[in-house]
C-alpha cells in the first residue's frame, strides 16, 4: 500500500513539473499602468520615444486624436505629462503618427506630428514639426518661409531618414490617397523633396520603417493598403522601388504594423510586417529575395495595428508583440532558426483593448524595457504600461549611438557579436505602426554568452567595432 502511494505521488510530482512551466509563461508581464499619473479614457494613436525637454532622459510622446498630445516623463516612479503648451498638446488637429529626429542638425530631435482630420485625400489642418527652442515649443511649419509645402493630405505613419548618411534627417510621410511627402531642411527652409527623390507615389500609406534593409545606407519599406508595398533602395540618396524584385509587394494584403528585426540572429535586419485581417509576414532575405517564413500562429490574420520586436525579458531572444485592435494581443519569442514561438499572455492580453499604438523604452533606466500601449479609434480607453517579469540573473547591454551632431543616430544598425549569436538591431527611425521606439539597441544577454563585441554601422555605412567587458550598462557611442 505504502509503495503504491509513493508510486502515485511520484507520478503527480512528475505531472506537476510538466504543467508548472506552462503556468509560469502565463504571467510574462506585470502591469505598471498605475504608474501613469492622470490616465483618463482617451483616443490615442502613435507613440514615440525621444527626449522632449532635452534633459538627457527619454520620454514617451503619445498622440491624441481630438485629445492632447502628451509627453510622459518618468519622475519618482511615475509617468507624468510634462507639456501643456498648446502648440504641442494641440487637441484639435487630431494627431495619429509621430516620429522624432534631428532635422536641423543641432543635436536635438524635432518631433513630427502627422495630423489627420479625414480618412483619405485632402485634409484641413497640416502637420506639425515641433522644435524645442529656448524654453518654448515652436511649430516650424507655422514659420512663414516653411508654409509653401505644407502637407494637406491625410496620412498615417512617419519615419526619419538620413538618406545621405550625413546626419541631416528628412521625414518620409506615408500619406493616404495623395502623394507621399519627404520633408528636409534645405537652405534654412523646410521643403518637400519627394518628387526629386522618386518618392511621390500615391497609395494608401500605412506603416513605414527605414534602416539598413538592403543597402549600406537607409532604405525605406512602406507597408501600404489597397496597393503594393514599397521597398525603396537607397541609391546615392535617391530611391528606387524594388518591392517587386525583392518579393515584398504583397498586393492583396493591407499593410499595418511593421518592424525591422534580425529574425535569424545572423547580423542583418529583416522585416516583420503585419497585415490587417491578412497574413502577417516574417520576411527574411535569401539570395536577394525576401522569403516569408511566417507560419501559424504567427501569420494568422488578426486586426493588427502595431508590431514591436524587442528583448523584453532580457533573455537574449527578441519578443514580437502584436498589438491588435478589438481582439487579444499576441506575444511571440523569436527562437533560433527563425522559429516564432507563441507565448501565453494574461496580463497584456487586453481582450477588449482597442490598441492603436505602442512603443518600448527603458523609461526608468533599470535595464528592462517598458511597453506603453495606446488605445482609441472607435473606443476611448486609457493607456497601459507593462514590463516583463525578468529573471534576476538576466543581464543586459544597451547601446546608444549618437551621430556626429550628438543626436540619436536613428537608422544606424547595432550588432552584438558573441560566441552564441550575431544579433542586429536598428536604432529605430519609426516603426510599429504610427510609432517610434527609443533610439537605443537593447540586448538581454544569453546563458553562457561570452566574447561580446558590438559593431555599429552608421547611417553612412561605415562601421566601428568595440569589445564589451562590463554588462548591465548603457554604452554611448559617438560618431566621429
Amino acid at each position, binding site marked *: 500500500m505504502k509503495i503504491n502511494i509513493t508510486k502515485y505521488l511520484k507520478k503527480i510530482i512528475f505531472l506537476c513539473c510538466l504543467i508548472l512551466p506552462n503556468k509560469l509563461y502565463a504571467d510574462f508581464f506585470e502591469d505598471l499602468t498605475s504608474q501613469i499619473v492622470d490616465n483618463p479614457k482617451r483616443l490615442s494613436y502613435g507613440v514615440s520615444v525621444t527626449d522632449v525637454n532635452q534633459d538627457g532622459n527619454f520620454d514617451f510622446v503619445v498622440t491624441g486624436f481630438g485629445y492632447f498630445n502628451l509627453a510622459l516623463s518618468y519622475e519618482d516612479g511615475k509617468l507624468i505629462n510634462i507639456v501643456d503648451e498648446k502648440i504641442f498638446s494641440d487637441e484639435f488637429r487630431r494627431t495619429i503618427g509621430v516620429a522624432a529626429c534631428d532635422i536641423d542638425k543641432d543635436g536635438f530631435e524635432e518631433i513630427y506630428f502627422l495630423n489627420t482630420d479625414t480618412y483619405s485625400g485632402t485634409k484641413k489642418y497640416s502637420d506639425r514639426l515641433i522644435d524645442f527652442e529656448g524654453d518654448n515649443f515652436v511649430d516650424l511649419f507655422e514659420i512663414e518661409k516653411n508654409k509653401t509645402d505644407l502637407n494637406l493630405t491625410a496620412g498615417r505613419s512617419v519615419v526619419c531618414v538620413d538618406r545621405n548618411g550625413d546626419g541631416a534627417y528628412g521625414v518620409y510621410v506615408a500619406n493616404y490617397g495623395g502623394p507621399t511627402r519627404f520633408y528636409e531642411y534645405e537652405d534654412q527652409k523646410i521643403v518637400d523633396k519627394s518628387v526629386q527623390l522618386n518618392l511621390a507615389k500615391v497609395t494608401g500609406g500605412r506603416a513605414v520603417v527605414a534602416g539598413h534593409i538592403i543597402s549600406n545606407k537607409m532604405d525605406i519599406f512602406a507597408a501600404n493598403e489597397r496597393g503594393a508595398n514599397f521597398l525603396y533602395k537607397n541609391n546615392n540618396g535617391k530611391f528606387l522601388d524594388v518591392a517587386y524584385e525583392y518579393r515584398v509587394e*504583397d498586393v*492583396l494584403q493591407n499593410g499595418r504594423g511593421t518592424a525591422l528585426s534580425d529574425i535569424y540572429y545572423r547580423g542583418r535586419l529583416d522585416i516583420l510586417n503585419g497585415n490587417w485581417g491578412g497574413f502577417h509576414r516574417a520576411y527574411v532575405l535569401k539570395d536577394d529575395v525576401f522569403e516569408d517564413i511566417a507560419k501559424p500562429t504567427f501569420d494568422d490574420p488578426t486586426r493588427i495595428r502595431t508590431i514591436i520586436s524587442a528583448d523584453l525579458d532580457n533573455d537574449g531572444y527578441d519578443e514580437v508583440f502584436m498589438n491588435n485592435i478589438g481582439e487579444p494581443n499576441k506575444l511571440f519569442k523569436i527562437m533560433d532558426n527563425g522559429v516564432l514561438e507563441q507565448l501565453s499572455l494574461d496580463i497584456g492580453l487586453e481582450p477588449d483593448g482597442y490598441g492603436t499604438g505602442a512603443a518600448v523604452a527603458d523609461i526608468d533606466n533599470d535595464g528592462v524595457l517598458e511597453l506603453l500601449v495606446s488605445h482609441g479609434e472607435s473606443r476611448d480607453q486609457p493607456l497601459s504600461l507593462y514590463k516583463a517579469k525578468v529573471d534576476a540573473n538576466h543581464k543586459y547591454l544597451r547601446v546608444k549611438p549618437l551621430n556626429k551632431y550628438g543626436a540619436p543616430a536613428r537608422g544606424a544598425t547595432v550588432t552584438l557579436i558573441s560566441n552564441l549569436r550575431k544579433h542586429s538591431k536598428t536604432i529605430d527611425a519609426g516603426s510599429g505602426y504610427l510609432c517610434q521606439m527609443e533610439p537605443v539597441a537593447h540586448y538581454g544577454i544569453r546563458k553562457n554568452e561570452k566574447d561580446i563585441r558590438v559593431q555599429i554601422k552608421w547611417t553612412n555605412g561605415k562601421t566601428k567595432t568595440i569589445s564589451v567587458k562590463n554588462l548591465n550598462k548603457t554604452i554611448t557611442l559617438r560618431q566621429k
Partner: protein
Amino acid sequence: MRLLRNFKKLILIFLITLTFSNISISEEKNYYKDLVTDWSRIFPDNNRNAAGPKFFKYIIDKDISYKDFVEYNKLYCAVSGSLIDPNSTPEFVNINEEKTGKKICGNYYRCCVPCSCDLMKYTTVKKMKHKFKDVTKEFYVLTIDNPCSKKDFPERVTKKYFCDGNNIAKDQVYNLDGRMVIGLFHNTKLCNDNDIKIVKAHPVTGEYCDIRNNTPLEELQAGMGDIFIKLAR
C-alpha cells in the same frame, strides 16, 4: 488491467499535449496564403479578369503532389480569375466532354453564381494526364477554344497572358491539344439521369442559369458580364 494502464497512458499524453499547447507549430500547408503571396507573380499587371488559365498554369508548373494540386485548384474561379475563400462549397454542374459530347458531372468552385452558368454553357472538359511529385494522375480539366484569333478579344482581358500572336502562349497558359485549360473539374463522373435532374432542379444551375444563358450578351450585367463569354464563345 491492461485497459486501465492504457487509459493512464492516454491521460498522460493528453496532459503533456495540454502543457505545451501554448506552443503552436503547425506545419500544415496554407494553399490560400501561397496564392495570395504569389498573386502579383501570377498577374504582373494586376489584371485577373477571366484569368483562371493563369492560375491553372501557375499551379501545374509547381513541383507538388496530386493532393496539393487539387487543393490549390479549389481556390480560384476559373471563369472570373477571382480568389475563392478556403472551405467554400462547390457547385455541382454538368459539362460536355469535348471528345464524346457526353455529359460529365462534377464540382466547380466559383466566386459567384453567374460563373457556374457561363462555365456550363461555354466550356467543355477534356481528360488530361500529368506526372505529379508523388503520382501520375488522369483528371478532367475545364477548357475553352483558342481565343487568340478573335477580332473581338475582350479589351478588359490582358491578351498577352493568353496569346502569342494567334497561338495560345504556352509559357503563360496550358495548351491541351489546341484548347486552353482554364481550371480543374473536381470529383468528376459520367452523369446519370439523377445527376442531371439534380443540376436542373438546383436554383442556380437550373432556373437561374436557364435565364442567364438565354439572355442576349449585351444585356448581361451580373458576374463577369460579357468578359469571359467573349473570350470563350
